[in-house]
């Protein structure tokens, strides 16, 4: 199994796709940070844009920017499986390892490891910008207060679990473009609408779980959304990850590879 995980990690590293996804996720993180840096405590038309940096909610918002690009890890997971079908490399993978569930399990482990590393990169990037920015603006410079450890740890976990969801979705749909459209459409559109319209349902969906883990409750001081506690969000996202992982395995093990 160690060998197969090494092979999967080499597959990820030996094309440039992960670099593009990392750049995009760091870009989204930067966008979120820029929003908070620009608007925290600043008067807009006589109204405060966002609460000042002394407000714990704003400090949370700064660090929660780390999870802004979590979708890109899901896309990397989608590409990780649909790319094998698209380029027909799945044939070689199953020739080398006829036990298909072993290939799938190795893939799930590798991508969750990679997702965690991806999350660490986003967290380090976020802290490197947020910490000096908060210090300059006179906010908290502690990485231990205001749920910061939970937010940052939650980001790493969410990245790892989103990778699993991406693999499962990709294995189910198999067409790369279709799978990415479904992922983006669901997380950005369908679930956003559901969350606003029926918050009691929204909290049980994947993005809601990420919201719970990363402590983002209502963006920009808006109305508080129904959100599960941290442990609840963690379990829920783990459940989604494992459910999609199971789908990935079951749909792939018996299928004819032609």
């Amino acid at each position, binding site marked *: 199994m160690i*060998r*197969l995980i*090494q*092979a999967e990690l*080499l*597959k990820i590293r*030996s*094309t*440039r*796709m992960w670099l593009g996804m990392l750049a995009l996720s760091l870009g989204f993180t930067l966008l979120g940070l820029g929003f908070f840096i620009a608007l925290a405590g600043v008067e807009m038309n006589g109204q405060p844009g966002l609460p000042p940096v002394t407000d714990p909610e704003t400090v949370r918002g700064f660090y929660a920017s780390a999870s802004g690009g979590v979708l890109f890890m899901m896309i990397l997971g989608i590409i990780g499986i649909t*790319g094998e079908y698209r*380029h*027909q*490399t*799945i*044939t*070689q*993978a*199953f*020739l*080398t*390892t*006829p*036990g298909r569930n072993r290939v799938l399990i190795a893939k799930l482990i590798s991508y969750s490891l990679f997702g965690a590393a991806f999350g660490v990169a986003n967290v380090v990037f976020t802290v490197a910008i947020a910490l000096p920015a908060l210090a300059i603006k006179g906010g908290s410079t502690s990485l231990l207060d205001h749920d910061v450890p939970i937010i940052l740890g939650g980001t790493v976990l969410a990245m790892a679990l989103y990778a699993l969801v991406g693999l499962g979705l990709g294995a189910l749909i198999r067409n790369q473009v279709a799978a990415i459209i479904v992922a983006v459409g669901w997380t950005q559109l369908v679930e956003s609408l559901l969350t606003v319209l029926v918050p009691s349902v929204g909290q049980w969906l994947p993005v809601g779980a990420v919201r719970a883990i990363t402590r983002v409750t209502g963006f920009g001081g808006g109305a508080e959304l129904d959100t599960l506690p941290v442990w609840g969000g963690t379990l829920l996202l783990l459940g989604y990850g494992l459910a999609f992982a199971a789908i990935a395995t079951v749909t792939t093990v*018996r299928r*004819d*590879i*032609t």
Partner: protein
Amino acid sequence: MITIDGLSKSFGSVRAVDGLTFSAQPGTVTGFLGPNGAGKTTTLRMLLGLVTPTSGRALIDGRPYAELERPAELVGAALEATGFHPGRSARNHLRVICAAAGLPVQRVDAALELTGLTEAADRGVGGFSLGMRQRLALAAAVLGEPEVLILDEPANGLDPAGIAWLRSLLRNLADGGCTVLVSSHVLSEVEQTVDHVVIVARGRLVRDVALAELMHDHGGLRVRTAQAAELTAELERAGASVRTDDGRLLVTGVSAERIGQAALDARAVLTELTEERSGLEEIFLQLTRDEMLGAEPAGTVAGS
């Protein structure tokens, strides 16, 4: 050794492979021939555990592929020259396989060297020609130094020098005791290399025969005449061997000129005198024609 035993596969209502039985022995190159759509690729994919048979068995050394413990070291397969990520280099493609199969990484350099890809090894496969992709597929197949080699249309896209190189590679491997099964729809690619031919059409076995046996018929002349008995007697006096086949005489051992002389001596009127193609090519062309016309392939080929 490869054993195909009563193998069938249906895709919906299409019977791609229909009760196929044959074997490929160690130390020989077995040509697996048939027109496009004859079921060759499906058969090979069932043999490699990628497609589940509807019925029958496909075994390597007596076991299904999925039950082999270290498949890369027993079986090497090159299925099509398309299974590559365009952004991954040839070297990394092989390194992934080595890692997954637990092979020493030095095998990568050896396989690149053998297939003449050392120079191109660090370039992305996206920029490779079809011939180079075929070489890379072969490099992947020989990575584990397997005893059984299964190649699907390996000569596609190779230039004449590449085909010559492929032939000598397959010959050397077979002479070293390997079981080599190589599919093709272009006869000339394999005719000079194979020891044994298995011909399929529409998923069914047409011929399973040693090449030498097929070539026994080779080089004859086809004669049609109303005075067959007289001409046969005359030709046999001239040292020819004559067989009757579908109203014609198949004559071997004498030249066309000698047949003309014999016809004059026997006062026989010739209505046809043709060089016979090799038995293999004749069968093959007939099958391809049947396939194009949509006719049921004949069990044996009558010709004309």
